[in-house]
């Protein structure tokens, strides 16, 4: 835990979901020569961990999670140039790039939003493509940004087959091995994930973050 007051203020700003305060604290920390990596790890990530814990314990709900994501993003904008400058290839300090989407024909997004927010809070660069996203667009976006992970969500049982279609399309295009494909949603379980050849699934958002961590670092 950093003893720097600006880093501590940053932790609080993320927990409070206050983008203005997080921007200000991040800038003050940089101005007082705190290592940008310390700002990232001890400030932003510590705050994000706490938000995740409170969400899991039922003390925080979706709005707090979304606000924390905003505070985190705003502070990252301030810190990122210094990180890149100070550390060669610091861009790679981002834990990984993720494309998330609710698969085509399905419009339910709460679960996907939570996973996106929690992955962002956990240090991943998440491109959330929204709902009812065509298979082709998801794959093209993953290629374009060099994603390691594709997270697919579906609530509707009759939309779930499109998850399988996406994996088959990746195979047909010869790029299946480039991506970790995770599937989730109320009706998705391990059997389904296995059946369609996905790399994994999770029962809730917190588990999803753990699964992504495990597979990305494998």
């Amino acid at each position: 835990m950093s003893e720097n007051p600006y880093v501590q203020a940053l932790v609080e700003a993320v927990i409070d979901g206050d983008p203005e305060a997080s921007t200000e604290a991040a800038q003050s920390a940089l101005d007082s020569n705190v290592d940008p990596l310390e700002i990232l790890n001890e400030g932003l990530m510590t705050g994000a961990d706490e938000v995740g814990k409170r969400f899991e314990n039922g003390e925080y709900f979706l709005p707090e999670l979304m606000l924390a994501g905003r505070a985190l993003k705003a502070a990252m904008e301030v810190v990122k140039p210094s990180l890149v400058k100070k550390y060669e290839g610091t861009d790679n300090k981002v834990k990984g790039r993720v494309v998330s989407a609710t698969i085509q024909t399905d419009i339910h997004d709460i679960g996907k939003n939570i996973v996106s927010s929690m992955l962002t809070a956990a240090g991943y660069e998440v491109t959330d493509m929204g709902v009812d996203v065509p298979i082709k667009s998801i794959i093209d976006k993953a290629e374009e940004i060099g994603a390691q992970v594709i997270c697919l969500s579906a609530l509707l049982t009759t939309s779930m087959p499109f998850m399988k279609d996406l994996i088959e399309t990746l195979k047909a295009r010869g790029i299946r091995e480039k991506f970790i494909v995770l599937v989730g949603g109320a009706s998705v379980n391990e059997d389904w994930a296995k059946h369609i050849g996905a790399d994994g699934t999770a029962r809730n958002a917190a588990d999803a973050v753990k699964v992504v961590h495990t597979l990305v670092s494998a």
Partner: protein
Amino acid sequence: MLNYLEILDRANSGPYLAEENWDLEKVAMTTKRLVKKYKLEWNQNELVTDDASLSDAIYNAGYELAVTLGSYSRTTERVIEISQDEIDNGIRNAPQNVVMGEGKDARTLYARHLNDERAPLFFGGSPGTPIPERFFLANVMSYMQEPLIDLATCGTLVEVDGREVRTGNPIEIVSTRRELQYMRQGLKRVGRAGMGMLAAQSSVSELGDLAAAHPDYLRSCDSHLVPMLNELKMDHRNISRAVNSLEYGMVNASLPCVIVGGLGGGPAGSAVINVASYLIANITCLADYHILHPIHMRHIATSTRDVLWVINATGQAFARHAPEIIVADIYPKSGAGTKELLYETAANAIVNAVSGCHLEGCGAADGNAPNCSGLEARLMAEVALATHKMKMSLKEANAFVLQLLPKYEHVFTQDGNPGKPFDEVYDLQKVQPLDFWQKMYEEVKTELKEMGLKV
């Protein structure tokens, strides 16, 4: 009443707003402010409240939310502005009686008041649950044949003729029509051909809904779903469902599934959003009646403490202030062949019945697996009728529910309790419960009697 073309115009020309800002800055922040302003708090040991001032406050907060925000079109990313006068007209014009079905099987859904002298009505079926075609007919008949069931609903066909059903694909037309063929066949076979239905559940997009609006499938005396999106949102797909009913005349059931733990935060904010959703649905869904189906963010089920509280708060708010026709879904965590399913059903039935609602159920096993049967719907109706006949007070209802909770709450901390599929709890030829399932039902019924419930 607001012309529906006017709603479409507003969806096309209202103020532009990014969806994330609608969610966070409009819905979440306004709800949070209103929960504070009206000092709303939930109590996990008072799931059925007899505090009229709490009910007043929830209604007023929901009304203020609806008037402040209006609705939002996800398709056009524009706010659908709705004035206070229009909200008030929606309340004034909300149907108080709706006849469903025809002939001797017709039933009149009505706007229930608290302590209403009239008994609630019962929709039997497992709405939205994926059901394989091989036992779809037997499954729906297991509900239709129950004497206490007034109206029929059903699950979703997930395959037809061995082919996987996909949303928005031409096969959705086939599956929705096939579902309705089975429904109509089932009604005839149990001798209740005129029974009203809430069906076309296999129509996940608007495609099946459009294809089923025909007297051979969904009659004009039947109802279909017009869903809202979380929270207070519509899109052109769902607006198409409402428009589809304009000339044909189907009964519109609005379906806002408020997420408890979502944008409204805890139970209090979720109840406020649920109240606002109905006031908006009067206009944007052309609602003839409303489905009350809050979804628990983690557990899905309607039988958790917080969701039971939201059901009671929302139902009472309307029953006390502006009665509208509300049908409360029962979606237990547990599946067929487990005692927990029956305890969850009983707790939910008590809450729904005393909260000014009609009942629909049960979407057993979270509506995730075909682990459902007519037997739990029988118990749902028996318990709700007992509650009604005993003239159970709100306080007594709360006491019964608190007694039932310890019998099933463990299912929320274990790895689900899905039970068994329909064909492992019913004899498919005779469409009767297998002995073990019948015995479980009788044992639970005995327990309920011992608790003082006159089932």
